[in-house]
């Protein structure tokens, strides 16, 4: 039943590696080709629609491709990149991306997720279920809906100011005065569930005897957390931080709905800057150069993530 036409596999199937080393027996080669056959639809899709655009990204980042009014784009070398690093709007976007990532992912989602998960270890079941349900619902909602809900929350006439008024605290137009803070909070609201679930799973795997022993020895809650729990879940912390950061780097819809990157660029992170350059300013080449930088940062994190996981594969 292994009889199959060797040509069947198509050019995209990973054929080359089939074996310079595995010997001259063509039967082996044919068998590995046959076994690789089912992988080919996925590989074709991935090559055409994922690897293709990435390669294309690298190519047009070095051109002055524009959206309109230009017959032929030309190769401009590193112009787009040098331009970016002299462009104040770009540097502003880099800074805001950094602020957004540190505030919402590293500090917000991560710490709050861990706090919720460890409280859940001790809480009663109904409270645990209720809180978990609410936090996870925020996570499952489509990003535009989440963006809209938090837009309503932070608007001048929205819920946050209503609460502040009620407490006789000064209210303000959050989306106008502190837009990056507002969108960071929005991202915490939306993304904390992921950390919470990861940390809940990690904490559940810590053997009870270990914490009980420490407790009997009189270690206080904070010291147990610092000296026992955190070291035991450090791998989960690493992977969670990586994934959160990558997620946060590519947030677009949430910020777009809440502020469109405004006012005057005060919440314009790199994805929104990229979009503005490519489409509002019609500079596809420049926008792509920014995209390439974003992709490089992402790949860097991705490689670190792989190293953290290296024993798993």
């Amino acid at each position: 039943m292994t009889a199959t036409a060797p040509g069947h596999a198509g050019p995209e199937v990973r054929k080359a590696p089939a074996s310079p080393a595995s010997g001259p027996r063509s039967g082996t080669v044919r068998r590995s080709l046959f076994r690789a056959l089912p992988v080919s639809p996925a590989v074709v899709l991935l090559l055409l629609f994922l690897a293709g655009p990435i390669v294309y990204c690298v190519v047009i980042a070095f051109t002055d491709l524009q959206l309109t009014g230009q017959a032929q784009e030309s190769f401009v070398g590193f112009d787009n990149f040098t331009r970016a690093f002299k462009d104040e709007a770009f540097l502003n976007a880099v800074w805001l991306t950094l602020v957004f990532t540190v505030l919402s992912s590293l500090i917000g989602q991560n710490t709050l997720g861990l706090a919720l998960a460890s409280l859940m270890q001790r809480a009663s079941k109904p409270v645990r279920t209720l809180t978990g349900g609410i936090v996870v619902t925020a996570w499952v909602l489509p990003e535009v809906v989440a963006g809209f809900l938090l837009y309503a929350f932070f608007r001048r006439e929205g819920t946050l100011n209503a609460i502040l008024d009620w407490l006789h605290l000064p209210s303000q137009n959050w989306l106008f005065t502190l837009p990056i803070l507002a969108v960071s909070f929005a991202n915490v609201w939306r993304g904390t569930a992921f950390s919470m679930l990861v940390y809940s799973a990690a904490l559940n795997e810590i053997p009870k005897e270990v914490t009980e022993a420490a407790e009997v020895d009189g270690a206080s809650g904070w010291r147990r957390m610092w000296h026992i729990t955190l070291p035991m879940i450090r791998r989960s912390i690493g992977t969670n931080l990586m994934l959160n950061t990558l997620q946060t780097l590519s947030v677009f819809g949430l910020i777009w709905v809440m502020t469109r990157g405004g006012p005057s660029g005060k919440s314009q992170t790199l994805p929104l800057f990229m979009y503005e350059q490519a489409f509002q300013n019609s500079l596809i080449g420049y926008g792509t150069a920014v995209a390439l930088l974003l992709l490089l940062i992402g790949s860097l994190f991705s490689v670190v993530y792989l190293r953290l996981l290296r024993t798993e594969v």
Partner: protein
Amino acid sequence: MTDLLTPRPTSRTARRTTPASRRNRRRTAADAGLLVAAAAFVLPLAWVVLSALDPHASLRVKVPDGVTLDNFDAILTPEITFTPLLNSLVLCGGATLLTVVCAVLAAYPLSRFRSRLNRPFLLTILFATSLPITAIMVPVYALFVRVNMIDTMQGTIFFFAASQLPFAIWLMKNFMDGVPKELEEAAWTDGASSFQSLLRIVLPLMGPGVAVVTVFSFVMMWGNFFVPFMLLLSPDQMPASVSINDFFGNRGMVAYGQLAAFSIVYSTPVVLLYVLISRRLGGGFALGGAVKG
């Protein structure tokens, strides 16, 4: 070690707090902490539910002065709700189907046969899993314009499937690894082909796994805004994730009650689907090895 487990007369026991009462106090404190967090998280959600039922909805959480379904009535028209939802369904359904079929096929040899290619392939897949897809949307747009695939459902479906595939393959492979190989070997001895054994033995045994990948892919795409926002142009092809934007831009005065009603109608399917699979996912939050620490 056992020595450590027997309580000692420490200062704490001297204060006569038995371990049980201490545990109770800690539980109360934890409950209080969680309830505060829950209250903070629930505010935006409460707004959408209350406003959808409120004839005079504003941006503020408030108890409606009268409950009405008018907001739902107003949006449940072909133009506002049904066409976008149908578009979402075609788009996400098509892409999910493509993703799952490709992922099952790809996962099979990766899980069943040893090859020196498996590891590099899986590492590449895992690497691609965490690439920020947002970053490549501008070049994807440029590429789609060049090959005339811009503003086509097929093009968007293909791209959606490709972007979801790495994670789907990874998850699927992990689920498939859970099906013991011996069962299949028996079938092979009886003369079944690999394809037959995949279809008749492996897939039925990993039904829940396939369901998880299907639902997860669907939920991810259903909520995705940027991909259809970039790749589709004509209004009659827009899925709900993009058409919800119209409430802001083109309809003049924003009718908050209607917007809230639409948000609920649009979100309900994915929330329900998530609840459906959350037992599978939530137990130890399996999501494959991807989040294992």
